[in-house]
């Protein structure tokens, strides 16, 4: 009698986890679909434009110790408050500058298709700082350390991550890698948002965030978050070809920029649903999709202007509660 009771308890204890898992599976399926709301139900009004200035070949802006710095891919220079060039900081580089930033009073530069990182001397020369085994694809600054995204191949499909500490000159290969491949095609829209101790690397169509948390100088914590149900991304965004997925030709130079503000991660998105693609209202705006900074769930969307006279949006920056959106030849400043 007691033996059969024992079996009853064992069977019950075996079945219970299955029931629990099935309940969890069905309850969370609903919330997964809500993670990214492609219908943009939570749209907020168009941001208010406060200033509008013409630019001469400014591609990105960095604020460092009260000065504004900018680059035109070949040179780094200081600019005035109207974003006009004042003084060259680095000499002209025939190889495009793909990443630059200040740390420990040093201006660190990464040049395209090179395996070496440079710092800029007082007379503007590029002095080698560290040599890697692979080509540096992107470089991000995080306190006294640099997070380097390096490509294992010329097609930039497989990326590996390094951490370089400027104080100790230690180069650590991080135990992660990513493949920018979706069904055979390359996802070329990696994007990054910087915080003082955090770097958030974002692959849009893979729906993936990589968060590098550098709270301790000797230890970096890397978390990954899958946020977008990729099957929900409409066909208008990615077209299928024999070689796999490709970005729609009409929507190329986007998703490359983002920023971090007020505990939200903003990504400039080119994911429009079918109805939005038909409407000029949507087509004349860039959407800045906001995700919370803890679990990277989609929250709401801001939008900014997209005019023919502005050209492509290249870079977004937050400074003094203002959003600086840099287009090919113009800068538009919004209140946020």
């Amino acid at each position, binding site marked *: 009698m007691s033996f059969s009771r024992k079996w009853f308890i064992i069977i019950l204890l075996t079945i219970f986890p*299955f029931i*629990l898992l099935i309940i969890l599976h069905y309850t969370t399926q609903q919330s997964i679909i809500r993670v990214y709301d492609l219908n943009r139900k939570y749209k907020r009004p168009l941001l208010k434009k406060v200033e509008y200035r013409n630019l001469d070949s400014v591609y990105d802006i960095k604020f460092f110790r009260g000065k504004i710095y900018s680059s035109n891919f070949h040179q780094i220079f200081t600019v005035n408050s109207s974003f006009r060039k004042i003084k060259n900081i680095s000499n002209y580089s025939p190889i495009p500058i793909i990443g630059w930033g200040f740390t420990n009073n040093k201006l660190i530069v990464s040049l395209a298709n090179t395996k070496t990182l440079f710092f800029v001397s007082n007379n503007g020369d590029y002095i080698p700082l560290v040599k890697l085994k692979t080509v540096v694809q992107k470089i991000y600054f995080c306190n006294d350390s640099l997070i380097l995204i390096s490509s294992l191949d010329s097609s930039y499909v497989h990326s590996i991550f390094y951490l370089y500490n400027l104080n100790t000159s230690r180069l650590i290969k991080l135990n992660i890698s990513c493949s920018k491949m979706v069904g055979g095609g390359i996802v070329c829209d990696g994007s990054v948002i910087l915080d003082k101790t955090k770097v958030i690397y974002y692959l849009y169509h893979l729906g993936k965030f990589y968060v590098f948390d550098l709270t301790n100088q000797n230890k970096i914590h890397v978390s990954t978050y*899958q946020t977008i149900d990729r099957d929900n991304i409409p066909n208008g965004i990615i077209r299928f070809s024999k070689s796999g997925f490709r970005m729609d030709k009409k929507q190329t130079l986007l998703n490359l920029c983002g920023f971090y503000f007020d505990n939200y991660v903003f990504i400039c998105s080119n994911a429009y649903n079918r109805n939005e693609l038909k409407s000029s209202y949507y087509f004349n705006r860039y959407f800045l999709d906001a995700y919370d900074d803890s679990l990277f769930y989609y929250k709401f969307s801001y939008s900014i202007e997209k005019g023919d006279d502005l050209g492509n949006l290249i870079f977004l920056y937050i400074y003094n509660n203002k959003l600086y959106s840099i287009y090919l030849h113009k800068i538009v400043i919004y209140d946020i």
Partner: protein
Amino acid sequence: MIKVNINVRKYSLIYISFVRYLILLIFSYAFMVKLLNYKEFLVQLSESPIIPSSLTFFFSIFLLFIEFVVCVLTVTKLYRLGLLFSYSLMVFFTIYIYYLLHFSPYLPCACGGILGNIPYTIHLIFNLAITILIFLAILFDESLNFYL
């Protein structure tokens, strides 16, 4: 005949003690790793495809609590309850890993330490092996017949 029975009982008790201390080792290790890296554990749990984000905190506390309870039970006279709890928990962890491997688009695992770093298939085999060991311990424990 009586001697054979005594021997069987003796080996059963040795086996059950072995499983008790194995459970204690595994669960106390898992508990400590999760507790010491609680923030990391919370993040990993939040990545789980089947745990709603609103319940992440609750689940983390519940898991820690149940692991702690299992550890305490295995070293007390109530170790039989510890065996039953740990069996159910290991069944859940095993099917959860199986679920992640077969149904999840990505593989987040909230197991800390060594277990968090081993490949998922090995993790699954390890969990399955531990589950079977506990199951056998429950079967061999004759006193559990009276207990239940």
